[in-house]
């Protein structure tokens, strides 16, 4: 407390410390969903980012295991603590996504899960006696894993990204980028950005009117990097006496923290050190609000219909015949 103690000093600037204390006591929730085909390095990456073994890879490793036929949703929750701050971290893996011969609709369970969390939060919010603090299970970030080496987005990526970006903050990554040379990476990133612009797929971070110059510059540099070309590793390797987290190949050692090797540091800093609270806030203010608005509107419309039916003397629950809203083909327009 180094605030000047002159007579004109009010002291409301201590609110940041008051908030911090409250926050330390309460902790916070962070929910991240991983979407990508099996073998893309999802589990390894998330374990690398949080430097803890949080999730096991769900890939099939024995011949006896059955091959999944649908996308499963498997959330895993752990509480991590750092310098007194507690986070209830939920990682939602999606094994089976994109792994079949026919991947039509493989995104449906994923979108449904995300929307269900919004719906659950809304339901708790609307309760007459609601909790003081609602347990937030809404998905704050989606790491979408792109296939390295493809020319750009694949048809599956376009379909899924269009839908995902409407319901959550999407961060596209290339997790196994150690098979791409620097030139290939640059080319791939450029193509992905062009294709996303063409299909109007907007990923996180978004532009906002509240942004000041510093925010804008930071976001611009993040957008430049997207998709993040990262390499994940849970192993430490000895290189000339120092321990590095990386991968050892016959032709060299990758240090995942080396910025000339991959974008891991940038991704981690972005997700956790600069934009963490923004991810949570944007989920609440943008995605949840959109969901809430459309849900409440639907509820209102339903109630209007029911009250109109009640006024017309029809028992609630009966099917009310609706006048046709458009003329049926080959028939004269209905005279209502």
């Amino acid at each position: 407390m180094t605030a000047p103690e002159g007579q004109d000093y009010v002291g409301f600037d201590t609110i940041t410390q008051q908030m911090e204390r409250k926050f330390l006591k309460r902790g916070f929730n962070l929910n991240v969903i991983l979407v990508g085909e099996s073998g893309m390095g999802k589990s390894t990456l998330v374990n690398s980012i949080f430097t803890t073994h949080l999730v096991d890879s769900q890939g099939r490793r024995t011949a006896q295991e059955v091959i999944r036929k649908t996308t499963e949703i498997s959330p895993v929750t752990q509480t991590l603590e750092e310098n007194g701050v507690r986070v209830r971290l939920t990682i939602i893996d999606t094994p089976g996504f994109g792994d079949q011969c026919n991947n039509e609709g493989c995104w449906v369970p994923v979108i449904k899960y995300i929307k269900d969390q919004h719906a659950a939060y809304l339901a708790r919010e609307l309760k007459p006696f609601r909790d003081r603090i609602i347990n937030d299970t809404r998905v704050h970030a989606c790491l979408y894993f792109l296939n390295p080496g493809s020319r750009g987005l694949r048809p599956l990526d376009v379909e899924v990204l269009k839908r995902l970006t409407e319901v959550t903050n999407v961060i596209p990554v290339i997790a196994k980028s150690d098979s791409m040379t620097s030139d290939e990476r640059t080319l791939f990133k450029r193509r992905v950005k062009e294709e996303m612009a063409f299909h109007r797929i907007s990923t996180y971070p978004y532009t906002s009117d509240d942004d000041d110059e510093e925010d804008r510059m930071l976001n611009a540099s993040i957008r430049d990097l997207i998709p993040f070309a990262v390499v994940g590793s849970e192993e430490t390797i000895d290189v000339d006496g120092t321990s590095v987290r990386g991968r050892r190949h016959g032709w060299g050692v990758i240090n995942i923290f080396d910025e000339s090797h991959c974008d891991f540091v940038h991704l981690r800093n972005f997700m956790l050190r600069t934009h963490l609270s923004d991810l949570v806030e944007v989920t609440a203010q943008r995605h949840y609000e959109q969901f809430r608005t459309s849900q409440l509107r639907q509820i209102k419309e339903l109630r209007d219909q029911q009250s109109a039916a009640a006024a017309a003397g029809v028992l609630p629950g009966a099917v009310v015949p609706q006048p046709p809203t458009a003329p049926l083909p080959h028939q004269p327009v209905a005279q209502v």
Partner: protein
Amino acid sequence: MAPSAPSITSTMSTRATTPRPSSYRYKSEKRGMTYNIMLVGQSGLGRRTFLNTLCEREVIPASEAPNPDTANVADPMRFDTYEVKLEEEGTHISLSVIDAAGFGDGLDNTSCFKQLQDYIEAQFDEVLVEESRIKRNRRYRDHRLHVLIYFIPPTGHSLRELDIELIRRLGEYVNIIPVIGRADSLTVDELQTFKRNVMRDIDFYKLPVYNFCWDESDSDALKENRDIMDFIPFSVVTCDEVLDNDYDSVRVRRYPWGTIEIDDDSQCDFVLLRYILLNSHIADLINYTEDVLYENYRTKKLEVGGFGEGEGEGEADEDDDEADEDEPSSASAKKQA
């Protein structure tokens, strides 16, 4: 890992590729051995650069940037054919490589298998027709597929449904050799584990990959072939650039953390695979296609096409009555076979 690769390739060099007599293949040295390879795999696994590295020249040019609006459209499968003339240890090879572009790249890929099967069968049918002609074409070029190289992505886990279905459906029509594309994304241990998992899947699902040991009569080669099968699936890394040293040109891929040499057999199986494909086993692959795969197909096709009623009622008559339009003298062809 490939500690024994050097010994395999050195003993293999003593096996000459003597063309064995065949009822159909033309042996003209000048024209070169007719050899047809198909490359199948999702885009991004290095099929095209594999061909360029295999032929040691740019057969398929690097493609220009696709338009952004094509990203969400899965192209239907294309069969792009490239003709290359090679010379390997004195043997001229008239190589035809078919790149099956578009396999597995769409949302629903279940129709890809049928398209591939139709393509392969069409080549067999052409030969069937040609064989049956009264007057055969001396210059006829055989387009039967002798080997299909299937690219598996380096997931590190096991085979995917797509991989299993492909091998299962096409193994009876063509010799399938599975390879791991972009194998430089796997460390040595991961590669070993992955290869082991893939082999376990192949055994468990009884997948019909090419059996190098099919000719059990050739006992000298049997040991060698068993050793080769330990390498399946072959790890492939393809050449990005060529570095010119003082004494040599080295084909490499350069990363910020190191440079991988394509021709170093301790780093990938490319050299071994190339030797197998173009030198030591070219005759085996061609012979198995002609003597076994084609013959099986032919028998099946003629049985189905020839008979409306039961079998064994005087095959020659049945053929005359019920034969396809394309096979006017299939009866005589059967007698010759």
